[in-house]
């Protein structure tokens, strides 16, 4: 697993594609948290999640990639856009999207990035894995879920039902609590 690490100076095609997709994901993530327009933040989030789905594809996790496209790009971002519409957010450029502690937040984020990147480089410098396609296909993952992970899967379905009912109860106005 860690023997015979290839040089970092001669990247393979997979690594180049992954790094390009990762640069797109990080760049659009930066735009999500810095853009001045609320709707554009949601649209940059689509780009970020799409690039991450591409990263999963390069890492041979095909099923996770398609689930990412379906749920994140298809459902979560649409839900966020509905939230933006229903709270009557200003459509154009708005000046007050950032709070006053922007500088402190930037310092904390840069410190977090520095610590994490340092530790990760120090810890996984010699880790290398060849990418063999097929390990993340729907067949493999389906058999893993329904053989070894059935109980968490069922618990998760109950959780989804509870979240659904909770969202309905919270957002309806004619259901009153006990006074």
């Amino acid at each position, binding site marked *: *697993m860690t023997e015979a690490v290839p040089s970092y100076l001669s990247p393979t095609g997979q*690594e180049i594609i*992954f790094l390009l997709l*990762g640069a797109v*994901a*990080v760049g659009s*993530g930066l735009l*999500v948290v810095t853009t001045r327009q609320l709707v554009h*933040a949601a649209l940059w*989030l689509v780009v*970020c999640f799409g690039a*991450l789905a591409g990263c*999963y594809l390069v*890492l041979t*996790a095909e099923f*996770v990639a398609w*689930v*990412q496209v379906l749920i994140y790009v298809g459902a*979560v971002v649409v*839900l*966020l856009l*509905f*939230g933006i519409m*229903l*709270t*009557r*957010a*200003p459509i154009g450029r708005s000046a007050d*999207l*950032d*709070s*006053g*502690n922007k500088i402190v*937040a930037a310092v*904390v*984020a840069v410190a*977090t*990035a520095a610590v*994490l*990147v340092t530790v990760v*480089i120090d810890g*996984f410098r010699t*880790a*290398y*894995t*060849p*990418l063999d396609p097929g*390990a*993340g296909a729907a067949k*493999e*993952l389906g058999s*893993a*879920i329904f053989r070894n*992970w059935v109980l968490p899967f069922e618990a*998760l379905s109950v959780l*989804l039902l509870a*979240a*659904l009912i909770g*969202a309905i109860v919270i*957002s309806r106005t004619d259901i009153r609590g006990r006074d």
Partner: protein
Amino acid sequence: MHVVYPAIVSALLFSIGVYGVLARRNTILVLMSVELMLNAVNLNLVVFDVWLRDRLHGGQVLTLFVIVIAAAEIGLGLAIVLALYRNRQTVDLDHLRALAEPSPPGVTATSDATPGTDPAIPGTALAHATSGDETAPSAAGPERTSGRREDS
């Protein structure tokens, strides 16, 4: 594939999410930043599953679970944000600093007219103590929403 590359991308995405959670004022933007952090964790899970060649596929299955939980979380979070918007007419986190329901205007007028009449009751003392904090956002609230209505 060197494992370092996905790990670095994931660390950077997580830091971006931290910045967004701390620096943004709109609640929906904070939710988006939380999604960014969850995605960073997902990338880590996938790459470690591929690296360690887990026979149970724990990493990728856990990634699917995290995606489902994130969907449930975003649904509930948006429901809470919408309920908040119905009650306070704002979703700005800086203006949401009152822990109690905003009292109707008649009640605040009477409690302001006779301050300290009953200091033995902790409720009135607390209301009097927090009224200084509460007047600023509640005064800013209707003004902001009227400006927004004019915009739209």
